[in-house]
């Protein structure tokens, strides 16, 4: 192979390595917007152009919710019991493995479940015999629970407290 040919081969060889890294780095820079989690992603006020294209950006955010930190039993055999809420779900029922074991003849073994999602707590009936009532209406699906709203299970009534 001639000297010029060898030079070309060497250039191509290093060129290919550079090209590979150009691909990697340009991919990373394309992701830059996605990788920023905090400040940059929460764009403050949308520009007029962005707002025209996406009117929903102009809606004001809902007022901050009151976070629930405690579960209180207000009525029934266990009245007065309190439980601190952590980030793990809570199982309510008569079964021994439940988080709050209800000594209530009208409650099922695995009666209902409270679980956090986002900044809210949700309550869900686990197919109990006598049903779970949130603010007087029977649950048919998982619903969010605001602090102070009573949840009735058999004779027991529980509430979330801030």
């Amino acid at each position, binding site marked *: 192979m001639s000297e010029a040919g060898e030079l070309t081969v*060497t250039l191509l060889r*290093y060129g290919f390595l550079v*090209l590979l890294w150009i*691909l990697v780095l340009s991919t990373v820079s*394309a992701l830059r917007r996605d990788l920023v989690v905090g400040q940059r992603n929460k764009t403050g006020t949308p520009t007029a152009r962005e707002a025209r294209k*996406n009117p929903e950006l102009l*809606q004001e955010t809902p007022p901050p919710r009151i976070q629930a930190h405690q579960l209180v039993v207000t009525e029934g055999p266990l009245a007065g019991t309190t439980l601190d809420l952590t980030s793990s779900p809570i199982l309510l029922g008569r079964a021994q493995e439940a988080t709050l074991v209800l000594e209530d003849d009208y409650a099922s073994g695995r009666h209902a479940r409270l679980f956090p999602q986002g900044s809210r707590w949700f309550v869900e009936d686990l197919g109990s015999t006598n049903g779970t009532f949130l603010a007087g209406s029977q649950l048919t699906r998982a619903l969010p629970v605001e602090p102070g709203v009573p949840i009735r299970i058999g004779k027991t009534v529980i509430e979330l407290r801030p």
Partner: protein
Amino acid sequence: MSDVMTVPKSRRNVEALLLLVALTVAIGANYIAGLDREEQFNSYFWTQAATFVGMGLLIHIILRVRAKYADPVILPIVLALNGIGLAMIHRLDLTRIDEATFTPVAPQQLLWTGVAISAAAVLLVFLKDHRILRRFTYISLIVSAVLLLLPLTPLGLEINGARIWISVGIGTFQPGEVAKITLAIFFAGYLSTNRDLILLAGKKIGPLQLPRFQDLAPMIAAWFVSIGVLIFQRDLGSSILFFGLFMAMIYVATSRVSWVLIGLALIGVGGYVALQLFSHVALRFDSWINAFDPEVYNRNPGGSGQVVQGLFGLASGGLVGTGFGQGRPDLVTYANSDMIIAALGEELGLIGISAIVMLYVLLVSRGFRAALGTKDGFGKLLACGLSFTIALQCFVVIGGITRLIPLTGLTTPFMSAGGSSLLANWLIVALLLLISETARRPAPSGPLTSSFPDAIGLNGRPTPGNPTEAAR
């Protein structure tokens, strides 16, 4: 959550730009690989270039029409990896092209690339939403079982001691590669349904919450499946892959460390028993520990010659590599399938191979990002499981080649010669693209305010802070 309000952008133009770079890499690699033969612009070169440009554009246009908000970097990364692998296979063909009985592998692999990308395109067009797959939870369990059993039927073929292939008219097919997708669908469907049961029930011992026995049953079943693959098909790699997949998915579903500990214990027991009972596992282990022993090196079968030759190749490559077509990666047996990373490491050097590893890392991280963004549990688990299989395969292959762990015969995703692996991995890419689309697509009715059911207040009416859609 609701204060993250970036303007939804489809980012397809970014993808088009990256695609251009990726295609340059893929076609450039092929060009440099043929440079020594003085016939760079032959018909194979043009077929390869046309296939990559055509197929890349096809998927790009389908994404523009069908999945506008899909992740913009997945397609370029995968296309570049596929192109580099194909170029290396072609380059290894060229060393043996003068032999009379040799049929080149690269044209066949190029054909499989076309088939695989077309299959991904068909999946993108016809599967509108990945959640449809959830209906097939138990069907996909049956399909996986059938696929895993196929090689044991008379259709099966035994190559190099492992019985994981079946012969299908034109060639061989590895059903286990497709089984990893169907198994991921089953695990995702099963775990997203039964997650709470596994999470809430069970005794607590110290810091560990142990699951109940009946919840443990599917885990034990998965363990038996992977042990069965190990015993009857004698394939260590696939059994590690299947069990690792299940362990990762159950950890993602429950976030319980106890499951990982149980899984590691089961692996330990299984590994120890396999080491005692099966000579091929014991030989693998021995040729990992004592690789540089001359006796072990020359032993046949089960010697360490392959992995040591690979290490010599990596060493001669050094930092910048010998250059495409300048090294001798053909000295390693199975250089174009099992050992393709060693071949690439020799010719592209540490700098090149770390770029390739970076591409895999980016691909896997995009899979997990799609899992984080999507809102349904099934999609989250499926994206996690699928991207984890790619990560685990890379770990097992690269770890085996660099002698971090014993060498097991798994394929390097998108690179190794082998059609079934390529097909399965492109289908995984199509699924990840679909899931990432649901993750990034803006909600049709604005930010999160209306995607949750409204809270019921004390009087049974919605609280004033959250007006319903109707009230607005």
